[in-house]
């Protein structure tokens, strides 16, 4: 029995010892330039929706000799909160997946060390939102109104503008997510704040037109939208949803069953940044550089259904054919989002949920 007790007491210690004591190998190599990072581990913290093909990080290892270790946690909001909570003892060297709606929160918390990647010159310039380069844009996606083409009300043309959604012809057809609990929900609220003359009146009109609100994307898209057998033909989703509807169709289809209202899009940009306090700074820099190479960038669309930030990255054929990029997406500076988010959301709750 005593032995058992000892075993149990040491279980925690053992677990810690068996756990990770990596990402510390690079320390003694710091002096030389360019730094040799081979043999080190670069830890990348990201959200649960992250995935790249195995071959991608293998290419990084072949190039640099360093291995990438992934840590995944919840959604982007949870990830940022946890990164801030663990700031004094960071869990990783690089954080990926903080988007422009959360960016300022991370910057205000001094989460990142500045790093200007030499590959930065190749990305779409409008994606670079931090002039100190504390974060680097990696990919972007547009949150837009989607509609199920065959399920639109009889005789109705697809909606062409945000204002069209308040047209009685689309009464009881629209379902959106609450910005209180959903990231696309927040993005769409921001799109309407920027894209309509009077967003509060706009939402009052949407309510009058029978808009439905769900807590998250899943229960909107699969619960009330046509895709899951629901009776609403218009939903807030992504500009990349139509290609997914083609690729994962059952039975296979030739054309996407859904369309996108490109006038309604809010652009979400995902960034990577080097976490302050990393003990593998050279490895972290190499990983950020690598995330802006075609090897990484061209793998991103079909795995995460987002668009590469690198201008030169080639798009897969499904994207070329079925995905569209908003020409003039709604953009709000991260600092403005952070400063006003709570007020906007609270006002939205009053108007819509009342």
């Amino acid at each position, binding site marked *: 029995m005593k032995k058992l007790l000892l075993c149990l007491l040491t279980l925690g210690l053992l677990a810690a010892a068996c756990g*990770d004591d990596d990402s510390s190998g690079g320390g003694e190599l710091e002096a030389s330039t360019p730094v040799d990072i081979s043999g080190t581990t670069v830890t990348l913290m990201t959200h649960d929706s992250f995935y790249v093909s195995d071959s991608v990080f293998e290419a990084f290892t072949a190039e640099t000799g360093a291995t990438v270790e992934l840590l995944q946690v919840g959604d982007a909001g949870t990830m940022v909160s946890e990164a801030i909570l663990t700031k004094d003892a960071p869990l990783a060297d690089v954080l990926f997946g903080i988007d422009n709606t959360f960016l300022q929160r991370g910057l205000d918390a001094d989460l990142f060390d500045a790093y200007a990647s030499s590959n930065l010159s190749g990305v779409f310039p409008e994606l670079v939102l931090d002039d100190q380069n504390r974060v680097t844009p990696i990919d972007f996606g547009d949150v837009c109104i989607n509609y199920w083409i065959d399920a639109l009300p009889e005789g109705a043309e697809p909606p062409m503008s945000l204002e069209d959604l308040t047209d009685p012809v689309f009464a009881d057809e629209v379902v959106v997510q609450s910005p209180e609990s959903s990231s696309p929900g927040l993005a769409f609220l921001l799109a309407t704040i920027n894209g309509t003359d009077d967003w509060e009146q706009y939402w009052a009109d949407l309510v009058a037109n029978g808009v439905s609100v769900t807590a998250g994307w899943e229960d909107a898209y699969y*619960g009330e939208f046509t895709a899951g057998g629901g009776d609403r033909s218009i939903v807030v989703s992504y500009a990349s949803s139509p290609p997914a509807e083609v690729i994962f169709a059952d039975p*296979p289809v030739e054309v996407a069953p859904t369309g996108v209202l490109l006038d309604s899009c809010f652009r979400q940009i995902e960034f990577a940044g080097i976490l302050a306090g990393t003990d593998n700074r050279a490895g972290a820099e190499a990983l950020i550089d690598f995330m802006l190479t075609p090897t990484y960038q061209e793998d991103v669309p079909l795995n995460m259904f987002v668009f590469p930030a690198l201008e030169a990255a080639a798009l897969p054929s499904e994207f070329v054919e079925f995905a569209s990029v908003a020409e003039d997406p709604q953009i709000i500076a991260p600092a403005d989002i952070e400063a006003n988010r709570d007020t906007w959301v609270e006002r939205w709750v009053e108007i819509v949920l009342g």
Partner: protein
Amino acid sequence: MNQRARIGRRAIGGAVLVVVPAVFIAVFFGYPIATVLWRGLGGGGGETFLDLAESSRQRDIVWFTLWQAVASTALTLVVGLPAASIVARLPPRRQRLVRALVTVPFVLPTVLVAGAFTEVFAVTGLDEGALRLRHTVWAILIAHVFFNYAVVVRTVGAFWSGLDHRMEEAARSLGATAWAAFREVTLPRLRPAIASAAAIVFLFSFTSFGVVLILGGPRRATLETEIYRQAVTRTDLETAAALAVVQLVAVLALVVVSTRLERRRPIVGRGARLSRRAASPVWRWVNLGIGFVLLGGPIGVLMERSFSTGDGYGFDHYRALAERAPQLPAPATTALANSIVFAVTATAMAVLVGLLASLVVVHGRRGLARVFDLGLTLPLGTSAVTIGFGMLIALDEPPLDLRTSWWIIPIAHALVGVPFVVRTMVPVLRAIDPALHEAAGVLGASPARARREIDLPIGLRGLVVGAGFAFAVSLGEFGATSFLPRRPENLTAPVALFRLLSTPGDLLRGQAMALAVVLMVLVAAAVLVIESARGSDEGVF
């Protein structure tokens, strides 16, 4: 063996009983929670609480959280108790089968269940006009009954089948109706098990997250969803921490009340007050029928969807589980294998900690017993955000830098499993007739030996039920897991399922449904195996 050595060994045995559960709960629950609350409240805790008390929104949230949990508990008892009585009367083998089958909802993610309920509502015409259930409190209550039915049927059913039925027979032969015999003889003896089950149902409903958000609609908020909103969406850690304290205090109060009810010595009838009320078994069968519809409806919808392919029905989605979908770092089958290993580990920890703790609760000194009883139940009533964030900031230094270790996942799961083991074990151990111990003493057995040879075999009845719960909870756990940083190779089945559902496309959705069905089959089979390990089912009370 001389006297001193015997006393020494007993002391060590006693120390192990106390120390193992105490260390487990202190290190993995108490310390992290204290750290995160301390960090959140900082110096200005008092003001935050005042702000909370002044906010009518927050007062409404606390009130709604409480009353929906009370209503869910009452409703679950009303629906579950008749079923428990029927289950208790079944032959042992069928009893085990039913007890395994009702566990199935435990592993189902709320997103899927909510969708399935919506379809059931639509099919039965409960989604129109005045009868509309979606986004109403009723939808929340019904879903809570769905998820918690097993808690009542299993906990009370197992306890019930162990009762000595000769007492009811005696009452009947003295002229009591079946109902009178139940009310006067059975019910008082069942009370500890009912109190125990009710406590678990209450805590589950009290901290329910997905059900409230999805089925209740975006207008509803409970303490659990509000803590998430404050901590994650608004990063207002101070308010989140204050709310977490409110949650802890409320849970503590509930557990105090419930353990008091549970501890009261079973009374054996209040004399022969015979009533001539009709003893119709019809209502029981009606109730059991409700249970079948309640569980079978949504589960049937999920099964239908898992077999439904673009051109009819087939096993396509099941076959697809063996191949890696683009959204997953590994095939779903690997995630299933991971989840099984986590569940076995978590169950082993929960059983060990829960078993030792139950012995302390039942036989330990009063103060200590009470502290254990409360402390080990608390994790069930604490929000996943509080536990997840707490572990992250507390367990960050050697020797306990567990934040990214494999072990953190089964430990977090075991925290939720322990209360199940304790709550199912304690009523069973308490119900053991003291005469058995006295007899053993007369025959020369030491108290320790009596405990080993009397309590353990009888306690096993509660232990296997608790172990089944611990396994099911771990297999289906999503909340706390999603807050812990994980390596991709540690992908669990519920996380995989959630990711499959987060990209449009019927193939991915079909695969998610198939994965859910496999999880259901798996948990039923595992619970059956665990409960069969008990062997003989003879009543020993």
